[in-house]
């Protein structure tokens, strides 16, 4: 009956409770939509960034990320490949062998990052084929090369020309090779656009005298949220001579940027919740002051003050929970709509995005923990705010209360 009593008490002043609930619902809706939109935008950006080159997870020889040389490459055994491919959550893998090289055409020479790839596997991971602006894609085992357009411009290269690559091979040997240009690639990232060229994995291994070796296995996942779990599983299953890194570890500056942006958003939500806290608190205080006589009467009749305080806490929970649920119900269709029909921005802003190879699209994401988190936050606010009236009740003098 205490629950019934608390619920009915809320409706003693219907208009006041409805206004309080409406303000809670509005705040919850605004925060859920804001957080969902921000998470959606960041997820989309991360998806764009990782599909540009790194993948969500990479497997390297131990120490490779700190010192990116062929000496830290590793032998790609069947057992390693099978372990990686059979790890739950891993949907694709692209083995790479990477080396810094001098790219030379005629009298022009530039530094570049030469990457040996399995073309089809790489295309599934980074959509490399779609980045070709002229020429054609390469095949497994081919002796042809793909060159980023910035590098091609500097070397005055075009499709059909021959590129000479010089580097240090495995075991310290000199690596030299010449490759006909099959296609020119456009990357959104200026860094990649100025420096990268691709060979087939077989050709690169031959060039670097590093048979069966790779510097990285770049992985795609079924769900980016499984990142930690996949990393943990791979670390447990792979030999200690290998390191498993997530995109977050490989690109900490992006993580930092997300954290900074998220902190800003939480300040905004904090201010929002602070504002509604005043509304909830004033409602609770009014409920407290209006019912002093009643509280005194209940104590006189034999109801412990703790039980009366529990009723007031329940009232606050019901008030905030009802407002929160209304907020969730209102926010769900908005979040769903923004997920299905993302905000698209045009004009100069869109061009800046497109220059980096990204679409200027800002989707939301329907992610249950966001809804649960906001509800719990508001419930927590309600409970904390109800502590004051509850403490007042615990200190209540029934005789003084009944005189009011």
């Amino acid at each position, binding site marked *: 009956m205490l629950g019934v*009593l608390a619920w009915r008490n809320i409706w003693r002043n219907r208009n006041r409770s409805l206004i309080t609930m409406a303000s809670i619902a509005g705040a919850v809706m605004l925060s859920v939509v804001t957080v969902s939109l921000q998470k959606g935008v960041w997820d989309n950006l991360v998806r764009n960034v990782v599909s540009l080159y790194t993948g969500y997870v990479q497997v390297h020889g131990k120490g490779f990320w700190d010192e990116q040389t062929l000496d830290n490459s590793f032998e790609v055994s069947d057992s390693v490949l099978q372990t990686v491919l059979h790890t739950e959550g891993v949907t694709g893998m692209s083995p790479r062998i990477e080396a810094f090289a001098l790219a030379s055409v005629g009298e022009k020479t530039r530094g570049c990052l030469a990457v040996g790839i399995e073309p089809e596997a790489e295309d599934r991971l980074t959509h490399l084929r779609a980045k070709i602006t002229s020429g054609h894609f390469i095949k497994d085992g081919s002796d042809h090369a793909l060159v980023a357009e910035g590098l091609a411009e500097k070397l005055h290269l075009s499709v059909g020309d021959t590129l000479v690559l010089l580097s240090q091979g495995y075991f310290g040997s000199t690596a030299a090779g010449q490759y006909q240009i099959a296609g020119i690639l456009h990357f959104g990232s200026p860094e990649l656009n100025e420096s990268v060229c691709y060979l087939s994995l077989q050709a690169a291994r031959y060039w670097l005298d590093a048979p069966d070796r790779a510097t990285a296995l770049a992985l795609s996942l079924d769900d980016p949220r499984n990142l930690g779990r996949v990393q943990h599983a791979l670390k447990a299953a792979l030999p200690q001579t290998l390191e498993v890194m997530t995109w977050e570890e490989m690109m900490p500056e992006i993580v930092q940027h997300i954290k900074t942006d998220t902190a800003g958003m939480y300040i905004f939500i904090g201010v929002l919740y602070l504002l509604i806290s005043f509304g909830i608190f004033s409602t609770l205080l009014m409920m407290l002051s209006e019912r002093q006589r009643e509280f005194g*009467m209940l104590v006189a009749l*034999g109801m412990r003050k703790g039980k009366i305080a529990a009723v007031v806490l329940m009232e606050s929970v019901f008030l905030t929970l009802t407002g929160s649920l209304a907020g969730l119900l209102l926010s769900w269709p908005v979040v769903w709509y923004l997920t299905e029909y993302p905000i698209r921005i045009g004009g100069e802003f869109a061009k800046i995005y497109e220059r980096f190879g990204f679409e200027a699209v800002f989707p939301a994401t329907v992610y249950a923990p966001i809804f649960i988190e906001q509800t719990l936050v508001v419930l927590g606010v309600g409970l904390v705010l109800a502590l004051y009236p509850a403490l007042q009740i615990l200190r209540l003098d029934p005789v003084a209360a009944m005189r009011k």
Partner: protein
Amino acid sequence: METRTVIDAHNLSKVYNPDSIPVNAVNEVHLHLERGEFTSLVGPSGSGKTTLLNLIGGLDQPTTGKVLINGTDITAMAPNALIDFRLHNIGFVFQAFNLIPVLTASENIEFIMLLQKIPKAERTRRVRELLEAVGLPDKGDARPAQLSGGQQQRVAVARALASKPQFILADEPTANLDSHSAATLLDIMEKLNREEHMTFLFSTHDQRVIDRARRVITLVDGRISSDTAPAGLSHA
């Protein structure tokens, strides 16, 4: 009628503002009430009636003296123990704002038994009996706002009886009632006193209540100035 002391107040005093301008609301009162009494506490405004009732009901702590209920010293009890003691031993009827407005008449009566952890079936049966006893068998589903003042006080009496208390303290129970409602309420309380030997102690200004009381205690300036006890009962 079995005679047994229900209320035994010894040398009871209550001083307000003891550190500034002391007010002796109750001054060295000795009071004994036995089972089945129907007693009025009368006196002018400010004479200490309500304070004495609050002290006897354990709502307020005396400055000196003690209150024994059935031999138990309630002035020495810890706060929660005292609240529990009231729940099981003392019924209250107040002048106004007696009922919980969001509960129906039945729920108001049942509420006390719920606090006493009485099983549902027994609660339901007793609510029905008590509504019958106060003449409101068809008002169980009505909220207090849907009842007249007299009906609300009758529900309050039913609620006070619900806990099967040792006695009922009623503070100006008829103050806000018209003659007919007051008479009906007093009829019910007299009947409960006569048939079930329920002990009643009223504080009142109301001559209608005083006329029905079998014992009238008059308070003046916090002291008992007269105590007209019925024959066969002895009082201080």
